[in-house]
């Protein structure tokens, strides 16, 4: 009989049971099986108690107490585990499947800034950093300011460079009213109202008598620049515009200056940048030259300074004018200027 029950036997059964309870991680059913295995009607501990009936009283007492304490301990463990599992089950209810986890998040409809606005803001930002202030002028402009004061006389073919939209309004003492063909008349307005030093940019919308096609619009945007003071040099113009172009198109962009003609600057230049499409190899976009034009510029023409009452040689200056659409087209490789004004949301969303 003795070999049927022993301290070590009870201890072993305890360990066995304990490890089985520990090993259960998820299923309550498994736990139930363990309960039946050890504490059920034919359970291992039930059998122990059966044996107890057959041994001497003094031993019965010792083993009885031991068994009771072990069973109590194990039942406590079992209950604890059961609780743990049921808590776990509640947690699992909130857990998302992989599918659910990977569904799209809330879709916020934020709008977009128009690409022209974006480029415009970038341009303005560069010149603000360089210490330029901003001046505005009207889009309905006097003929004198748009042309004559800028050294473009009435009979000069230079007027043909910019076909003009005239307005059905009474003629003023400053000539006919028209839609300004460039932002340059704001130069005149600034020069008439302020004394040098002048260091301003003058952004705005301009108009030309052009039929709409992939490269022409009858209205577009320009940013004019004007610097007038004592001792302003052509090298300053080169420095400012090179900084500008590098800020917009990247530090590595190659650029060059080329002779040109504008009635209100002398010398007059055009600035080209290395073609972004072919990287200077030559392609259809740059007409195989490897360069594309970005802006026109030059030293303020002596006649313009005289026209506003400033002495040339005492004062010198430079001016430039750049097309916002043109810069945007170069930057984003857009091949049709009309896209900016079609306002197809799919287009605007690209930027």
């Amino acid at each position: 009989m003795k070999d049927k029950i022993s301290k070590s036997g009870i201890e072993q059964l305890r360990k066995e049971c304990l490890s089985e309870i520990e090993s259960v991680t998820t299923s309550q059913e498994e736990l139930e099986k363990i309960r039946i295995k050890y504490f059920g009607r034919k359970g291992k501990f039930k059998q122990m108690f059966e044996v107890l009936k057959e041994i001497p009283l003094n031993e019965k007492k010792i083993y009885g107490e031991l068994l009771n304490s072990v069973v109590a301990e194990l039942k406590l463990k079992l209950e604890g585990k059961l609780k743990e599992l049921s808590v776990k089950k509640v947690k699992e209810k909130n857990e998302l499947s992989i599918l659910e986890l990977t569904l799209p998040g809330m879709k916020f409809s934020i709008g977009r800034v128009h690409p022209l606005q974006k480029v415009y803001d970038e341009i303005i930002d560069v010149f603000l950093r360089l210490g330029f202030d901003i001046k505005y002028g009207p889009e309905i402009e006097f003929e004198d300011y748009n042309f004559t004061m800028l050294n473009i006389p009435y009979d000069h073919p230079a007027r043909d460079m910019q076909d003009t939209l005239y307005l059905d309004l009474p003629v003023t003492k400053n000539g006919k009213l028209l839609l300004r063909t460039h932002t340059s008349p704001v130069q005149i307005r600034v020069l008439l109202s302020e004394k040098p030093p002048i260091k301003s940019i003058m952004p705005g919308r301009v108009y030309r008598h052009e039929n709409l096609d992939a490269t022409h619009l009858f209205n577009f945007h320009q940013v004019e620049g004007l610097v007038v003071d004592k001792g302003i040099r052509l090298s300053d113009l080169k420095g400012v515009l090179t900084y500008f172009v590098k800020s917009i198109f990247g530090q590595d962009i190659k650029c060059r200056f080329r002779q040109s003609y504008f009635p209100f600057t002398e010398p007059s230049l055009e600035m080209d940048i290395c073609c972004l499409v072919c990287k200077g190899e030559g392609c259809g976009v740059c007409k195989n030259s490897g360069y594309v034009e970005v802006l026109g510029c030059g030293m303020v023409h002596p006649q313009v300074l005289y026209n506003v009452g400033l002495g040339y040689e005492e004062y010198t200056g430079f001016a430039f004018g750049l097309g916002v659409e043109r810069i945007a087209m170069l930057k984003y490789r857009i091949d049709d200027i009309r896209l900016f004004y079609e306002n197809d949301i799919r287009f605007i969303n690209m930027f």
Partner: protein
Amino acid sequence: MKLSLQWLRELIGSVQSDISDTDILNALEQLGYEVESIKSFNSKILSNIKVVKVLSVNKHPNADKLTVCKITDGVENKEIVCGAPNVYEGMYAAYVPSGAVISGNIKVEKRKIRGIISEGMLCSAKELDLYDDHSGILELDSEFQLGSTLDKYFHDKIVEVSTPANRYDCLGHLLIAKELAVKFKLDFKMETDVLAELENKKLPFFDVKISSYELCKRYIAIQINNVNNKVKLPFRIMFRLNSLGLRSINPIVDISNYVMLEVGHSVHIFDYDKISNGKILVRKAINGEEILALDGKSYVLNEEVTVIADDVKPIAIAGIIGGENSCVDENTTNLLIESAVFNRSKIRIARKTLGINTEAAYRFERGSGWNLCEFAAGRVYQLIMKHCGGQVTKFSDMKDVEYYNNLMSYQHSGIKTDLNFISSLLGVEVDNKEFIDIMRRIGFEVRLSYENLSLNRQVYLLPPVNRQDIKFQADIAEEYLRFTGYESVPETLPTSIQKFVGRDDIGFFVETIIKYLVSMGLTQVVNYSLCSSKENEIVVNVDNKKVLVLNPVSKEFSELRLSLLPSLLRNLNTNYNNQVENVALFELGKVFYKTDHRTTEELQIGIIAHGEYDYLGWQHRKYKYDLYFICGVIETLFKYLGIDFIKEVKLNSNIRTFINKEFFVNTLYYIEKRTMTLLSFVGELQRQKLKLKLPQNVYYAEIYIEELMKFVKQEKIYQPLPKYPFVIRDLCFIVPEKMNFWRVEKMINDIISSEGLIHSLGLKDLYKRDDKTFITITLQIQDRNKTLTDEETNIVVNKIIDVLEKNGLQLRRE
């Protein structure tokens, strides 16, 4: 203007030299002749085309319009069938052997044509991609070696350049070549005194009268008799004319055109026998006078136009186009060469009023060089004598002597040039020797003030007579740079100007608003400022407000827009047509209107919304755009900017709005409280009245931001945060339909404020039952100094109920 690189190279005198095409192209760009296109001849085609001579031409037995020709390449003879009208015995032509490929990738094969085998063909200039002429086969001449392939002869490039509008002296190959020569540091000589030979002959004067020197400063007339206008000009001349875009007419006319391309000055030639009494008068046209021009069109003239006339009739429109009645034709034997300096301004006006564009007008309206006029006359005379023969019989050179003297004295006064100034203007140190060398090469006469230039760097520069565009030191600086290149100028910054600037007010304001609107889910658009008259009708009392364009591009864009609405509607349609239905847009743009005698340009913001605001995607929580969306956008903005506003459904008549309310169902105005300034208009569009094809309701708002900007609260001051808890009370009222909810809010606000309490008010619910409207208002009331008791709260709430009930609302008591 088109240029032949080969011709330029020939004029520079460097046919064999190592100046490449690329060198010339780069130099042209640097000199200010912007290259617009480059055309090379197709050597792939030309390398298979042979020079042949036509030995005999016989009629094709089976076809009227075809001939059977024997040709030779010097070694073997071939028989071909030819359909060209200009083939003749002894002609040098371009032969396409069978198997060779011509333009359009057409392979020529030996084949039977109407029963006779043709071993290849003779081809036209067009078939060789040389120039656009398919009227007959290409005629070569004896300078081509029989049997050689054509690629040896055609390696020219035709370059289209734009010339500066102030340079009338560079509208031909000769003077551009001169500039290139200076650039390449080559010697360049131009013939002078071309007319000396004529002057020495002491010929009788041709009878020329100029009615006013204002019209014409110089008129050279040369009469030549007994010319042969049936000769063939050398291939070289014909090819240059053709490849530079001019059609061959007859030898005399071709010579004058050739000289125009060479010298840049346009010379006109009359048939002497068609001039009545052999007299020329330069005069203003008589109003209503008519002339049939060489372009086949009849022009009614007016006093703005200058004409060349004989005793009885105008025979040419000066500087623009010749008359049919005096033109040189193939039977012309006696002729009159005219080379003149016309008033460029008058030529320009005449060209514009008559609407004629010719090569001559293009040049004359830019101006004409005093000596180029003479040079061109001499060249035409030389070439006619050389190729067409004849005897010169009369000669005259009428000129405005006073003008000429002025011109010379202007030239001789010179431009005082300070090399120190030029250096400081350019930001680069100008080298004395190089400067003087370049100026002399360009043709300036340089007079030194002092022998030693390094002590006093002042010189007097006398520009060439045909460079009247040079007046200031700035012009001299430009000339210097054109020839030295812009790379020599360093990059600096204008450091002398010390100005500290920030963003301008309007710019900053606009930037803030754009950012706000974008964050609200609206997308920015940019539209044209011009619209159609129909689009402007969206606005009331249109006619006296509109600003019209006198010369619109099209009817569609003939007026400045009065409102942003029409183009925003167009944007909705564009997107709807692209299957994008749910759209909310805004535009920041100017509108234009007349008030009395002034025009106003006003910056506005337009907002438009259509469809749904899809803010939760797949969870199907969508919000249909409605009036409250737009109102929310505006109210949130106004609150953010600190604007005190009133909402009204009707306007006092003294407040301005242009919007035509007939096109709207529901309209609302936002008004600044203190000044009663209109800040914004909101409305729902009448879809039927506007004939909209959009499936959903359209909501629109405009914000008058120039007004708005005036009321923005600039200063924000800190208020201590409340320390005590708030109480919440919900109140439900039955509200009359005519009640302006904004007034309800105002009454409540006023009461709570007067109690010295702070609060926030929200509309919790609105529902209708029977014909009653119930609203539930929720109030959060708070005291800055203590915790509010129930009793204290009730006192305030009862006051509110009391006032509201007196104003027609009724508390709903359960």
